[in-house]
């Protein structure tokens, strides 16, 4: 299978069932809203070491936010519901409540919810005020510049994490350009995030390690510097560099749509092969076949 001159390997990305929540952060202007959004999604690249995966989904215009101010929608993913609540309380409490002028709203219309504002309200030390608008409860917590306003409950949804594809190139420039273009195109898809730095991973991992203490280690099959002597290297001869793009989404449809756009954008001269990471179908609940993504 090929897109342009790029080989598309007949394989699948193995994705996992996760829980997600959407958080709308607004601020007096884009400077403060973005500041809070970046802080809240910082150090949230992988469940393995960060306890959650988070990223900015979309930039929102004042017309699109509950309070008519500029904002960002954030997606946060965890493996279970209870830890999602904990991560939201930690991150909103430390990164949004602390940021000047910001407010924080539930972004999911979902039956299942976790109580976040209802926990953070205790920071108000008894001076907090609750308000209900259109059936939704909000908390006003007194802070140095006025009040921090937050939704009491945040909707959560069963979601999909770990959609992925690998870009294998014959040069650093081609491979980085392919990643840059793919991520830029995929960012237009709603309800997905690419949690790694600028959406790209260079340290793709495999399950387990020769060291018993580690649950994951470098996916040596895609490391070019050792392909000469590693028996199970998966890198073709003409390939000198490899990157991975990981996608978490609110549902399988969103992840698939983003992967399709990404793969078709990345394919070009110099990108020798595009493939995907999986665990033989033994770990993940979702299989996204690359053959179904070719336009």
């Amino acid at each position, binding site marked *: 299978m090929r897109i342009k001159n790029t080989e598309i390997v007949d394989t699948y990305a193995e994705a996992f069932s996760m829980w997600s929540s959407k958080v709308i952060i607004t601020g007096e202007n884009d400077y403060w809203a973005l500041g809070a959004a970046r802080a809240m999604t910082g150090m949230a690249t992988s469940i393995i070491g960060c306890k959650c995966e988070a990223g900015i989904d979309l930039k929102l215009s004042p017309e699109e936010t509950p309070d008519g101010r500029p904002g960002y929608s954030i997606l946060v993913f965890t493996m279970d519901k209870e830890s999602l609540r904990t991560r939201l309380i930690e991150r909103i409490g430390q990164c949004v409540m602390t940021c000047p002028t910001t407010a924080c709203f539930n972004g999911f219309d979902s039956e299942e919810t976790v109580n976040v504002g209802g926990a953070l309200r205790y920071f108000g030390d008894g001076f907090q005020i609750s*308000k209900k*608008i259109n059936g939704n409860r909000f908390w006003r917590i007194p802070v140095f510049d*006025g009040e921090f306003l937050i939704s009491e409950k945040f909707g959560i949804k069963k979601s999909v994490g770990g959609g992925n594809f690998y870009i294998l190139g014959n040069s650093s420039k081609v491979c980085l350009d392919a990643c840059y273009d793919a991520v830029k195109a995929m960012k237009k898809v709603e309800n997905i995030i690419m949690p790694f730095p600028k959406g790209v991973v260079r340290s793709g991992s495999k399950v387990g390690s020769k060291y018993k203490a580690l649950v994951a280690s470098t996916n040596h099959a895609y490391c070019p510097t050792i392909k000469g002597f590693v028996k199970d290297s998966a890198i073709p001869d003409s390939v000198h560099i490899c990157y991975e793009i990981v996608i978490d989404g609110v549902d399988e449809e969103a992840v698939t749509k983003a992967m399709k756009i990404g793969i078709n954008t990345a394919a070009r001269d110099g990108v020798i092969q595009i493939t995907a990471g999986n665990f033989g179908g033994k770990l993940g609940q979702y299989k996204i076949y690359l053959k179904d993504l070719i336009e």
Partner: protein
Amino acid sequence: MKLKLHTLPDVPLEAEKITPAVINKLSIKEIENLKVFHGNRETNLADFFSVSKGSQDILEVEGDMHRIKYLGAKMSSGEMRINGDVGAHLASGMTGGHIIVNGNASDWIAPEMSGGFLHITGNGGHCIGSSYRGSAKGISGGEIIIEGSVKNELGHGMSNAIIVIGGNCGDFTGVNMNSGTILTFGEMGIRTGAGMKRGTIICINDLEILPTFTYNCEYAPVYLKLLFKYLKNKTKIKVSDNYINGFFHRWSGDAVEMNRGELLVYCH
């Protein structure tokens, strides 16, 4: 269904059966035979109203009903549209649903309301959303939007609900308020928020503030941006961008009670 008043009652008619839940499941004949009290005498609804097929989901009521009490009483769901003035106790004990009145309303509107949405395009009387005499608690939920002006004791002892008044308010607005929000766009009478424990009274115009309230600061509450945007989308009340983007003086009171209530007064 559609009900049209054909005979103005001499004394108040207690029509608590005129709600979507009761009317919409009956035939025209059954509706005409519904019993209502005209003063202290039981009579048929048909003696005052003509009944016809109307919209399937909406109950429409039409006529000068300033002597018809308890319209929409204990309403829990559905939609009711009233064209004309309405009498006292409209939406009494309402728990859900939607009532729109294209006209004026009398006194004691929505007593003991705990949910639902009431929208009056004209003016209202005294004690709207108030507790009954002898009761410490007024309405405990829902939303009341009145585009015109109201008289005294708006939201007496209210909790949790939102009341929005497009015009002026009389005296003792939010007296003994427990919680909830009153937003007023017109002039205020005297003793606003007297005895309030918690809750918020937002005033666009300057008002005489009781000496038992203390001044805190001038700020731009994000909560109000949310509320104003919600009202802009849901009602026809004109909300100026000046209010949405503006600053408000915050006063705390009433010190004779818990001192946890607030007056937010727009900074002109």
